[in-house]
């Protein structure tokens, strides 16, 4: 019968064989891509030629030089787990993907997005060349023309309206180097209006966690979850949002027979694998956490020693928690007391326990308070700073952690130096520019509407506008926006237009802008809303896989990604576009002082070295490009659970994978990085640490420094403040500094060298000496159960702005109206009006939003990838079976979802399911391109429309902002649903 014809080429790699067999026929696009790599040319050489018409190079068949596949490693861009992508490249074309077995993070695995990422680069729906819109029509322009016109317009707008009138929206898909460069560019332009996606995903985490114990980041790692005996996943659905993390979660669950508890309003794919699922009403996280803590305190399950040694003001929390009796918790959240008691007992007693959260906790008007409550739960049970414990915060994009660290944020300079004078001066030194010159770049803000005027210096130290409300800053009356003028121009780099709430108002804001520039591999929603007829540019940026640079995963591991292929079509890297703009704006030379630039492309390694030179505060100082590359090369040497390489390895000996920050001192110091933050059971040199003494040494008579707790091998055996040259002198450690180090400290300190700290000492001497003494440079403090500088120092429950329980609003109102981030936040008025108008009756269903595994963020990239798009072709709303039956809605039919603001509505398909409870609906947030029932496909530049379009959930989402970070409320609003 049939047998396989075997002969000749068996044993050779498929690519070589394909190349050998290639003949000079015309090929279709995919065939071309796969095979032309084998022939010659490559995608970059294609330029903008219509792919269908391309003929592979003549040399193809004849010379048949079986090209050797080159293996290149980069990092998947679709979430923060940091999966290594292993690409096979032949002649500049990415022809195949192999499992990345060596990576300790993903061990060969990918999710749907990672396994399809090759198509992201090859997608024929990418924007191929710069475009601008002229009288409502897209026209192709050259890069030169685009950059010239854009910078001319920027300059004109700046001259007329000031630097703050331009918004610089960066991206969590930037590399660390691009993030840093973008923030630096913003500083040189003279504004703090520089933001990115962290605003809308984990800004509240960063604020809440940093305000509790020092740094706003995941304390442990994905891999370390394997050590946990109990895990609570609250407001997170890693099965869809971080699938590869589930490898560690489920393995840990199996190996330790761990308790896996999922607390969520929705029965998610993650919940399906939990041992215990707790269904809560959206927006009642604080009652539920306090409800758990109530049982903990009631039964004395708290870790008393830990609290005494390392926590400040836990008693303030006890007072608040006492109010949350099981009855009250059940009344507010719907969770029975018995169940929470079970959860409390497991979390407090079957240790180590870890808390995992995601945007279900953060995207609320009480986001920061939620996060704080979660941290306090860990503190109360002593579940921080040890393997298997901690707050494992799963972040969103590849490099959202890195972009946050590197200052794409309206409240800080790179690496959390803040906007204070000291921070500015620190970076001015690193950048080798005059502080005064930087200051001169900023606007003076005149007095307005009863507010005082601001000098340039004051404006330089004032947080900018949040990206969640950029359109309010365009549309609100000028005297409401606290800067020289409202926003006039948006520079959007790698950021969707459909990811912020209240889309109808965003569309209005778009129309009023004087200039809109979208720099992205795809046109994004901004291009498709038909809001603009002129002064709109699209710049094709290559994907992150076509760029060199480092990325910081959620666990703070920094991984070096190498350019897989040259930027496709006419696209360019972020580095190059920033460079070209700086050139036209006249500050390229200062901006790139000391950085190698070849063919207009700044060198990523040099940029990282500059970060290393200034990144003391967060321990971004030890990760040189060389060390990071060595890690990528030696991935297989790192342990799966401890993430550590064997000590005797010549290249990466003793290092934790990716040198997770803080990695203290200069690279030569070979600090291994910090796998688990605040881990006192290790020496600082081995990645140990304590809670950061960030908030002073004493408050109201109580010490803020740790008591009888210190990291292993510390010379100081009690709490201590952060180290400055002054402290050094008191301890006599200044003698340990070298002459060079001393000279640098003297130079920085000028007449007050004592103020030079571990974070501003450019010599790294203070950190080096600290390490030698076994102490951690940032001090040994207590974590704060009471964060007095926050609006709610101890978290209190507040009903959502659009509450489905108007009866609870009087007792648990949202915060009073106040001004934040240069604008009014009128949540209280909106909430009151909603209650008065009986909105909850007209819109009886709670609407929440979330993520699908196939798509990411605004979804433009992933919806343009046919391998992913095929799997989710329609925007939908999950409707409970009972709600559907009441409304005569059948599974799969179109329905209208109505929102309570702007008479907004969205036409989507119904998915009738019990994943959501009765009275709850859920929509994914990745769709756009349909608007209130209208298909906007024709408004995209021809051929650059994503494969799949659908209504954006944010068409019907509503008002509500966290007072600390301006985080939007996406998880609770109200809606009505009817058959279409």
């Amino acid at each position, binding site marked *: 019968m049939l047998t396989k014809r075997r002969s000749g080429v068996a044993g050779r790699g*498929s690519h070589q*064989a394909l190349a050998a067999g290639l003949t000079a026929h015309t090929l279709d696009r995919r065939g071309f891509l796969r095979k032309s790599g084998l022939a010659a040319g490559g995608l970059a050489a294609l330029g903008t030629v219509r792919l269908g018409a391309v003929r592979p190079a003549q040399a193809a068949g004849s010379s048949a030089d079986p090209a050797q596949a080159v293996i290149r490693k980069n990092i998947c861009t679709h979430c923060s787990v940091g999966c290594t992508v292993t690409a096979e490249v032949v002649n500049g074309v990415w022809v195949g993907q192999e499992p990345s077995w060596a990576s300790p993070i993903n061990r060969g695995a990918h999710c749907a997005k990672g*396994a399809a990422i090759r198509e992201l680069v090859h997608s024929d729906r990418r924007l191929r060349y710069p475009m601008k819109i002229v009288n409502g029509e897209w026209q192709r322009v050259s890069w030169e023309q685009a950059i010239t016109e854009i910078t001319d317009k920027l300059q004109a707008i700046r001259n007329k309206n000031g630097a703050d009138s331009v918004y610089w929206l960066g991206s969590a898909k930037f590399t660390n180097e691009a993030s840093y460069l973008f923030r630096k560019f913003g500083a040189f332009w003279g504004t703090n209006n520089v933001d990115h996606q962290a605003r809308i995903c984990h800004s509240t985490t960063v604020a809440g966690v940093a305000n509790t114990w020092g740094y706003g980041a995941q304390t442990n790692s994905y891999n370390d979850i394997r050590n946990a005996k109990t895990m609570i996943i609250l407001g997170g659905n890693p099965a869809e949002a971080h699938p590869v993390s589930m490898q560690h979660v489920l393995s840990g669950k199996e190996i330790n027979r761990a308790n896996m508890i999922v607390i969520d309003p929705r029965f998610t794919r993650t919940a399906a694998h939990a041992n215990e699922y707790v269904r809560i009403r959206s927006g009642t996280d604080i009652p539920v956490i306090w409800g758990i803590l109530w049982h903990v305190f009631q039964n004395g399950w708290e870790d008393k020693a830990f609290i005494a040694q390392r926590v400040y003001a836990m008693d303030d929390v006890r007072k608040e928690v006492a109010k949350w009796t099981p009855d009250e918790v059940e009344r507010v959240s719907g969770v029975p007391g018995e169940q929470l008691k079970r959860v409390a007992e497991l979390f407090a007693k079957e240790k180590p326990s870890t808390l995992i959260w995601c945007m279900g906790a953060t995207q609320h008007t009480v986001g920061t308070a939620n996060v704080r409550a979660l941290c306090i739960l860990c503190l109360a049970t002593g579940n921080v700073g040890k393997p298997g414990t901690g707050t494992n915060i799963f972040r969103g994009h590849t490099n959202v952690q890195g972009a946050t660290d590197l200052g794409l944020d309206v409240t800080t300079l790179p690496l959390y130096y803040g906007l204070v004078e000291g921070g500015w001066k620190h970076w001015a030194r690193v950048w080798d520019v005059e502080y005064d010159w930087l200051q001169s770049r900023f606007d003076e803000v005149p007095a307005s509407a009863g507010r005082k005027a601001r000098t340039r210096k004051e404006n330089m130290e004032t947080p900018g506008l949040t990206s969640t409300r950029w359109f309010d800053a365009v549309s609100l009356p000028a005297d409401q926006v606290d800067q020289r003028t409202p926003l006039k121009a948006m520079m959007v780099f790698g950021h969707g237009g459909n990811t912020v709430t209240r889309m109808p108002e965003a569309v209005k804001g778009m129309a009023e802008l004087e200039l809109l520039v979208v720099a992205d591999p795809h046109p994004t929603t901004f291009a498709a809303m038909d809001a603009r007829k002129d002064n709109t540019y699209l710049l094709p940026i290559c994907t992150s896989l076509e760029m060199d640079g480092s990325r910081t995963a959620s666990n703070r591991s920094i991984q070096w990604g190498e350019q897989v292929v040259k930027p496709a079509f006419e696209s360019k890297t972020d580095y190059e576009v920033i460079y070209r703009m700086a050139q036209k704006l006249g500050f390229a030379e200062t901006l790139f002082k000391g950085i190698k630039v070849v063919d207009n492309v700044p060198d990523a390694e040099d940029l990282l070295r500059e970060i290393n030179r200034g990144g003391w505060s967060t321990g971004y100082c030890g990760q040189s490009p060389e060390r990071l590359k060595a890690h990528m090369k030696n991935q297989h040497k790192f342990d799966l659970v401890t993430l550590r390489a064997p000590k005797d390895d010549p290249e990466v000996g003793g290092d934790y994978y990716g040198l997770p920050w803080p990695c203290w001192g200069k690279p030569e110091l070979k600090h291994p990085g910090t796998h688990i933050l605040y881990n006192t059971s290790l020496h600082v040199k081995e990645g140990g640490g304590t809670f950061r003494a960030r908030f002073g040494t004493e408050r109201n008579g109580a010490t803020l420094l740790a008591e009888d707790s210190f990291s292993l091998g510390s010379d100081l055996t009690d709490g201590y403040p952060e180290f400055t040259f002054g402290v050094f002198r008191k301890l006599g450690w200044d003698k340990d500094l070298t002459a060079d180090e001393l000279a640098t400290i003297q130079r920085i300190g000028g007449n007050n060298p004592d103020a030079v700290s571990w974070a501003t000492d450019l010599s790294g001497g203070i950190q080096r000496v600290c390490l030698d003494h076994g102490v951690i440079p940032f001090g040994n403090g207590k974590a704060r159960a009471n964060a007095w500088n926050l609006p709610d120092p101890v978290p209190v429950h507040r009903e959502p702005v659009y509450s489905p329980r108007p009866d609870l609003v009087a007792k648990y109102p949202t915060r009073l109206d106040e001004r934040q981030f240069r604008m009014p936040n009128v949540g209280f008025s909106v909430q009151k009006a909603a209650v008065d108008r009986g909105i909850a009756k007209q819109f009886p269903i709670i609407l929440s939003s979330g993520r699908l595994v196939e798509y990411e963020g605004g979804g433009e990239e992933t919806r343009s990838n046919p391998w992913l798009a095929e799997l989710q072709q329609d925007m939908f709303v999950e409707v409970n079976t009972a709600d559907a039956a009441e409304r005569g809605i059948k599974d799969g039919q179109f329905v209208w979802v109505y929102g309570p603001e702007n008479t907004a509505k969205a036409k989507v398909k119904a998915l009738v399911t019990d994943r959501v409870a009765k009275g709850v609906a859920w929509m994914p947030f990745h769709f756009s391109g349909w608007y209130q029932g209208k298909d906007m496909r024709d408004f995209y530049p021809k051929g650059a429309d994503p494969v799949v379009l659908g209504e954006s959930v944010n068409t019907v989402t509503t008002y509500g902002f966290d007072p600390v970070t301006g985080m939007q409320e996406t998880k609770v609003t109200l809606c009505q649903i009817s058959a279409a």
Partner: protein
Amino acid sequence: MARMKFLCDADRCIECNACVTACKNEHEVPWGINRRRVITLNDGKPGERSVSMACMHCTDAPCAAVCPVNCFYTTADAVVLHSKDLCIGCGYCFYACPFGAPQYPRVGNFGSRGKMDKCTYCSGGPEVDLSVAEYEKYGSNRLAEGKLPLCAEMCSTKSLLAGDGEMIAQIYKERVIKRGYGSGAWGWKTAYRETIAI
């Protein structure tokens, strides 16, 4: 020779669809053809489980038996493959398959639905190993390169196992013993007339 099988550990499968897109990526599978797919059972209810399914490469495969032109063959690795040159697109394999594996390029009626396509266990087809012809008809041939199917290699949670039947059964057994539970090897009874005894 090894007896290759697939095993989806439903207690690990999270419906992430990596197996589906890995397959698309490896073989440039066009839109509309899904050699592998993930199905969620009891969706939204307690006890929900997802299972990734493709051709199971059955023992004594029904598709092969019913084929009126005998276009199927079983490789030394016990992978069930077919020849598109011989296939007449009659649809009998598709009636017989317990797992819905056979797919056709055209949909609507059997007038001329075209040649059947299905999972090849990443081991190509009757053409010369690693040739262009093999790639265009059947996709790539990882087995010939000493690799396993990409769907299983890339599975996010190591739920989908591929390899010698006894070895993967052993892995599964150890897992079940370690964690104390397991909902069984989905489809094994139907495909291989056996279950994994634990």
